[in-house]
């Protein structure tokens, strides 16, 4: 929303206020000022001129030699060289003569370009600080000013504020409304708009027009005025200047006045050409109803649109003539010859206009206002303002009227009441009711104070004020939130936990980061096919589709984080990074699709990709990955995390390098090397190892409290033990068996080395373990230590077919 400070001055003294203060005061009312543009500065030396003729400069593909008529008095045209491509003979343009200084400080002179004299220059909007456009020369509207006049006659000095108006404040989409806010913010008096009507005469409008509103839910009020005898005139300069300042193009008086009134007091108006409506001696039946699917209408923009039941239309003799609240019809549009009009000032339902505009794919200044639900009192304000200006500018005969349907008329709402203690308590600011009342009155509220309570009625166009909390806001923003002290809620009772629940997922993330994995965040949606390639922990789960995805690549909610991570690996590979290790902890979505919310498991996914990596180094990375998983399990108290080789392979994974992850009998996920074909389908070269496991619920109860065993201070016996096993013997199985073997004196066992050696025989490998043996109460004898060691060998032989290596 653009507002002109010169225009605001009609309602409140503000032209003397520096821009910085205007910005600050208005912003603190809640209407943010995004930008202030000074327009019409330094334009007195720039003149209005006319292109008398133009031709290409010989030898140039873009420069023009332009003859410019600069005084309109038949004097010799002035030669100007120009590089813009939007000129035509007769165009009215700004010309900066030699010696003039442009707003950006550029001083013009007579120059020669490629042998051609150029006197001064024709200007683009940005060179005049009249806009950001540098695409072409500013083309002035015919009649904007006489040739030779200073450009400041077209664009007088003004400041234009670009406002961001919140959805609840349609009253700030016009100058009178913004002025009301500004008056309150500056503490200055507000001048009301002049709403006196011209005299009425002639045939009563009611004899020429009948009205029918089909559904009061669509249209709370429809007010029509019949005006005839409209004279030929041009839009007065002051109005044209203001319209231009806020980005509107003046057309001709009837349309301009309607536009002006909308920007002035906020009521969108529509003017139907009365003769094109079929106006004459017989009354015209004007209706407001829903469109039909077999109807269409060509709008003012020249586009023909099919109507339908979502679209509200205005009809004349049941024929659509306008898209209610959105745009008029071309067939009944006013033109410079229009002598009689039917003026529409209506209050359409915001939701209806919103639905219409969306169905039509057409948002206009009018629909944007109606959508925010205008007040039903506004049509009489808007029509009075229009009729008065029309009478002044063109002369016109206003017929007795109006003709009006007002099915949405309601008794005035009772005042909103708040007691003083509640008001002060809500703000946390000691405040007298008198001060609150004064704040509200500055916004044109009607206020009475009695018995420690305040009763306030908002001005009729402030539909957003209905409950006591609304008064709290109005008082607060006028008094200023900077006046409110900063306090913290009193700790009357303990609330919740003082620390966030330690969350397993966060700890898992920390472990993964410490192990060298960078945290990634990938989109929660993916292509269906991508999700199926590597479902990770979401194996067997039904994916859930989006109804209105941004594209097929994002059409399904993910069942696993892994595909997104593989896509990230591919991006890093494409950018020549050597190795990508990523971890993501996030929610996936498991169906079924339907009326119920899908489950949202929290998954931890890790990938490690080396472009060009081979089988041996991938095996090393996979083992390290399992070690990281084991650390995560230990950190979140899952230990021991168990790795169970998958019999017969798992879709998406290497046929023999894949394990299921579980803890305490609960299945958690899967880890392994990604199938080469799957990796290739993500454009990944080389091998990827990956894992994904469920981590919801970890440590949500604060986690297991560790119980500490006393540390034995007796000496340990440390022994290394070498055994020979088959080449596919499972270390995990062997170690689990030893740990389950009820050997209280075996403090620890760990693998020191795994090796192959010709002396072990074919299809065999060696394991060397380090055993730490200790009894907490006494020093172990050699015989006792030996007994434990023998027991370990027995267990290993039973669990893994191990035999003691000679000499080991």
């Amino acid at each position: 929303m653009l507002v002109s400070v010169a225009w605001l001055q009609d309602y409140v003294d503000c032209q003397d206020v520096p821009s910085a203060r205007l910005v600050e005061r208005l912003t603190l009312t809640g209407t943010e000022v995004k930008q202030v543009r000074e327009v019409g500065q330094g334009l007195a030396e720039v003149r209005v001129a006319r292109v008398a003729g133009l031709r290409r400069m010989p030898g140039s593909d873009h420069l023009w030699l332009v003859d410019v008529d600069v005084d309109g008095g038949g004097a010799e045209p002035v030669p100007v060289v120009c590089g813009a491509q939007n000129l035509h003979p007769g165009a009215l343009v700004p010309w900066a003569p030699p010696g003039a200084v442009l707003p950006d400080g550029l001083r013009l002179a007579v120059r020669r370009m490629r042998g051609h004299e150029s006197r001064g220059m024709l200007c683009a909007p940005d060179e005049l600080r009249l806009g950001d456009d540098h695409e072409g020369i500013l083309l002035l509207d015919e009649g904007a000013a006489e040739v030779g006049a200073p450009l400041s006659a077209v664009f007088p000095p003004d400041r234009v504020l670009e406002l961001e108006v919140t959805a609840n404040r349609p009253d700030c989409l016009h100058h009178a409304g913004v002025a009301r806010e500004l008056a309150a913010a500056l503490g200055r008096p507000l001048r009301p708009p002049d709403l006196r009507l011209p005299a009425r005469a002639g045939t009563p409008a009611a004899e020429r027009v009948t009205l029918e509103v089909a559904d009061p839910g669509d249209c709370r009020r429809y007010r029509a005025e019949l005006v005839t005898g409209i004279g030929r005139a041009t839009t007065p300069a002051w109005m044209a200047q203001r319209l231009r300042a806020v980005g509107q193009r003046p057309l001709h008086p009837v349309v301009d006045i309607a536009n002006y009134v909308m920007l002035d007091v906020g009521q969108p108006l529509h003017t139907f050409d009365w003769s094109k409506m079929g106006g004459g001696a017989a009354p015209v039946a004007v209706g407001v109803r829903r469109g039909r699917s077999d109807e269409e209408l060509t709008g003012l923009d020249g586009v023909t649109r099919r109507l339908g039941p979502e679209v509200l239309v205005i009809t004349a003799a049941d024929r659509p003539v306008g898209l209610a609240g959105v745009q008029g019809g071309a067939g009944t549009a006013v033109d410079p010859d229009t002598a009689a009009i039917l003026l529409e000032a209506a209050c359409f339902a915001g939701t209806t206009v919103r639905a219409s505009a969306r169905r039509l794919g057409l948002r206009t200044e009018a629909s944007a206002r109606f959508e925010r639900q205008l007040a039903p009192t506004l049509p009489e304000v808007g029509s009075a303002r229009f009729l008065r200006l029309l009478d002044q500018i063109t002369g016109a005969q206003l017929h007795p009227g109006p003709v009006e349907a007002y099915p949405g008329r309601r008794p005035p709402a009772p005042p909103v009441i708040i007691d003083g203690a509640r008001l002060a308590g809500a703000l946390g600011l000691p405040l007298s009711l008198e001060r609150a009342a004064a704040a509200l009155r500055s916004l044109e509220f009607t206020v009475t104070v009695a018995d420690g309570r305040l009763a306030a009625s908002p001005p009729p166009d402030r539909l957003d004020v209905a409950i006591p909390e609304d008064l709290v806001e109005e008082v607060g923003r006028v008094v200023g939130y900077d006046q409110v002290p900063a306090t913290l809620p009193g700790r009357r009772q303990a609330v919740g936990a003082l620390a966030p629940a330690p969350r397993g997922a966060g700890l898992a993330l920390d472990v993964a980061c410490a192990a060298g994995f960078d945290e990634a965040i990938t989109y929660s949606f993916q292509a269906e096919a991508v999700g199926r390639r590597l479902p990770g922990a979401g194996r067997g789960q039904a994916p859930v589709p989006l109804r209105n995805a941004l594209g097929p690549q994002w059409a399904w909610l993910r069942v696993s984080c892994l595909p997104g991570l593989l896509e990230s690996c591919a991006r890093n590979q494409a950018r020549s990074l050597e190795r990508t290790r990523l971890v993501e902890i996030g929610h996936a979505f498991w169906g079924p699709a339907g009326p119920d919310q899908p489950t949202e498991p929290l998954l931890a996914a890790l990938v490690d990709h080396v472009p060009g990596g081979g089988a041996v180094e991938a095996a090393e990375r996979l083992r390290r990955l399992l070690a990281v998983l084991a650390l995560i399990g230990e950190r979140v108290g899952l230990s021991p995390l168990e790795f169970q080789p998958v019999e017969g392979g798992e879709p998406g994974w290497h046929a023999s390098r894949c394990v299921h992850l579980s803890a305490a009998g609960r299945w958690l996920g899967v880890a392994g090397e990604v199938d080469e074909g799957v990796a290739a389908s993500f454009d990944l070269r080389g091998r990827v190892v990956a894992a994904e496991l469920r981590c919801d619920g970890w440590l949500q109860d604060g986690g297991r409290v560790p119980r500490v065993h006393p540390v034995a201070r007796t000496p340990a016996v440390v022994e290394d033990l070498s055994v020979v096993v088959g080449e596919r013997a499972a270390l995990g199985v062997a170690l689990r068996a030893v740990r389950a073997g009820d050997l209280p004196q075996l403090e620890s066992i760990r693998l020191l080395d795994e090796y192959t050696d010709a002396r072990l025989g074919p299809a065999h490998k060696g394991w060397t373990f380090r055993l730490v043996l200790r009894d907490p109460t006494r020093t172990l004898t050699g015989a006792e230590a030996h007994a434990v060691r023998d027991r370990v060998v027995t267990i290993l032989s039973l669990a893994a077919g191990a035999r003691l290596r000679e000499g080991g």
Partner: protein
Amino acid sequence: MRPESLAGLAATARAEVAAAVDLEGVEAVRLRYLARRDGELTVAAASIGRLPDQERGPMGRAFNAAKAEIEQALAERRSALLQTTRAQAAEAEWLDLSDPAVSLELGHLHPSTRIQREVEAIFAQLGYRVVEGPEVELDEVNFQLLNIPPEHPARDTQDTFYLTETLLLRTQTSPAQIRAMWAQPPPLRVITPGRVFRRDNPDATHFPMFHQVEGLCVDEGISFSDLKGTLEYFSRSMFGPDRAIRLRPSYFPFTEPSIEVDVSCFLCGGAGCRVCGSSGWIEILGAGMVHPQVLRNGRVDPDRYSGFAFGMGPDRIAMLKYGIADGRDLYENDLRFLRQI
């Protein structure tokens, strides 16, 4: 035994010390003369006690002098030998330590996660509990119970992904307010971090998915000043102790009054720069007093309780705080980006 023979013993020992070529040799000399039981000087001294009184004094002094002489020689020789050893080791074991030369790679938290954790820690200090809400939400909870009925203009700015007629990807974390009130009667202080979704094609400032943190405090007598104090505490904890905040009236359907919160620019200190758009202020969050209808929708009696709510974007805060110019970097997971955090 005469005092002179003790001095002779010391002289011999000194010569042997000087001849020792390593620390073991020095130790052997020490043991030969000074060993506790059978060192030559120790043995000689054993007889002193038996001497007549007039001889005991001079012999004792001679013994002490000889012992001191030997010990000094030992210490000097040891120190000389150590110095030689160090010099040899310095030569033989020289190591280039100007750089670790091997690298242990530390992974990095995503910038948004890092900010989210900071936010959680700050509000934990104020007694807030972290709770999560579903990312697939009911239209009713995401919109209607927050005073955003169908056709409400606020839906325009939150273009929504739908799964079904009634299920959507949450467009904001605000539905967590409703769920928090359903889950626990006041007093209540929670924050809810998480992903939110808007149907926007990604560009430098728009993403179909981003993060928010919602906060809610409901109790008896909660006032606007409590909201202001809380946000001031947060802003100073997050952006620095000298920060000022500015509360601008705004509009959210589910709070009344509603505000947007600016913090004085932490780069230029409020003088105006490119980051704050020369205004000196940076918008960091939206907030307000919970609308009485929303309290009712959360089964909380608005005549007894009041509360405030706030919502912020960790992505945006990360961009401001870490100087991230293009938000797309947040979701491309380029290692060169992630490793800077």
